[in-house]
C-alpha cells in the first residue's frame, strides 16, 4: 500500500530514518496483522485441567487460538479475563476452528485439579481449556509471550492461612493457524471482546 517514496538525496541519513519510521508506523496501523511473536521457536509441554498433556503450539496448528492469562486465586480481574474469553466464543457463535485457552501463571497453586474446578465454575464448553505445567516451563512460556507477574500481599490471614496474590499483565492474545501471535489486547476491559470478535471474523473469512 505504501508507494515507494522517491528522494534523490543520498546524504540525508536522518531524513531516511524519519521516513522509515513513518512507513513503519503506517504499516503497524494497517489491517494486515504483523507477527508479534512467532511461537514456533520453542515447544512447551503443558497440562490441561484433565491432566492431559498439551504441546504448545503444535497441538493447535491449523486453528486460531485465543489466549488469556489468569490465576485462579485472583477473584476480581482474572474472572473478567475468563468472562471475556467466554464472551468472544459466544459472540463468534462457538466456532469449531477457534480454541480458547486460559493459561495460568501460578502453576504452584493452579494444579490441573484446581483448574478443573475453575472450569466448572465458569461452565465453559470443550473448546475452552485451562493450562498449567511445570513452574519452570510455565515461566519460560510467560517470558516468551511477555506476560509479567510479581508476588504481592503475602500474609497470614485472620484464620491462619498463608495467602499471596500476583500482580500481572492484563492480556488477551490471538494466535493464527501457523502458530504466530498476531493480536494482543488488554485482557479484562469490557470493550475487548467486540474488538477481538471483529478481528477474528475478518481473519476467518
Amino acid at each position, binding site marked *: 500500500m505504501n508507494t515507494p517514496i*522517491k528522494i*534523490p538525496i543520498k546524504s*540525508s541519513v536522518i531524513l531516511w530514518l524519519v521516513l522509515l*519510521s513513518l512507513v513503519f508506523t503506517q504499516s503497524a496501523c494497517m489491517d494486515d496483522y504483523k507477527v508479534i511473536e512467532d511461537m514456533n521457536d520453542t515447544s512447551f509441554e503443558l497440562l490441561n485441567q484433565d491432566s492431559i498433556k498439551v504441546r504448545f503450539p503444535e497441538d493447535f496448528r491449523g486453528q486460531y487460538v485465543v489466549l488469556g492469562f489468569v490465576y*485462579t486465586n485472583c477473584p476480581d480481574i482474572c474472572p473478567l479475563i475468563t468472562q471475556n474469553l467466554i464472551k468472544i466464543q459466544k459472540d463468534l457463535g462457538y466456532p469449531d476452528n477457534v480454541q480458547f485457552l486460559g493459561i495460568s501463571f501460578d502453576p504452584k497453586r493452579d494444579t490441573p485439579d484446581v483448574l478443573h474446578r475453575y472450569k466448572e465454575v465458569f461452565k465453559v464448553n470443550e473448546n475452552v481449556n485451562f493450562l498449567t505445567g511445570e513452574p519452570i516451563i510455565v515461566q519460560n512460556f510467560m517470558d516468551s509471550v511477555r506476560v509479567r507477574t510479581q508476588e504481592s500481599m503475602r500474609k497470614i490471614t485472620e484464620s491462619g*492461612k498463608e495467602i499471596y496474590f500476583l*500482580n500481572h499483565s492484563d492480556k488477551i492474545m490471538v494466535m493464527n493457524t501457523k502458530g504466530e501471535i498476531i493480536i494482543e489486547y488488554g485482557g*479484562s476491559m469490557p470493550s475487548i471482546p467486540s474488538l477481538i470478535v471483529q478481528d477474528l471474523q475478518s481473519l476467518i473469512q
Partner: protein
Amino acid sequence: MNNQTFFISSASVRTKIHLLFMLCISIILTLIVGCNNKVDYSKSVFEKQDTLADLSMAGKEWNIHVDGAWARPTKAGMMSAAYFKLQNYGYVPDSLIRVSSDASKDVQIHLSYINDGIMMMEEQQFVSIQPNEQISFAPGGYHIMIIQPTIDMNEGDSISFLLYFNSGMIIEEDIHVGNPEL
C-alpha cells in the same frame, strides 16, 4: 498519506530542515490519528460518582445504603468477591472499615487498579464515603474479597455479610450469589 511522493532536488539546507519538520509533524499526526483503535488504559476502571440523594431517603443524620449487591459464584476453598453500590443519603461522612461474612473468616476490602499495563490489587484499611456520595464496588475496582470460602457459593444462594463503619454503625446485608455480567 499513502500515495504521497516527495521530490527533493538540489534543495538548500533550509528546505531540508523544513521538510524534516513537515515529516515530524506528519508522523506525530499519524501516531495520534492512525492508531486510535488501541485500548485506552487511561480510563479509570472503577467509577466513583456523585449523585443527588433521593429526597425520600433524606432526613436522617446517618443514612448509608447498600444497593445491587452480588457475589461471584465459586467453590469452597477457591476465591470470590462481592460487589455493591454504597450510597450515603445522610448528612455525615463515614468509612467502611471491615466486612465479615458467613462464607469465610477471611474477608477483606480490596482495590484493583492498573499500573503500566500490570493489574495490581491492594488491601484497603477503609473506604470513606461523603454525604451524597455513591461508591461503586465493581469488578476492576473496589471489591470485597472472600478468601477461600468454607462453603460452595452456588448461583442463587444468599450469603450474609456485615459491613462495619467507623461510626460504629453496622449494615447487615444478604448478598445474592450470581453473576449479572454473564
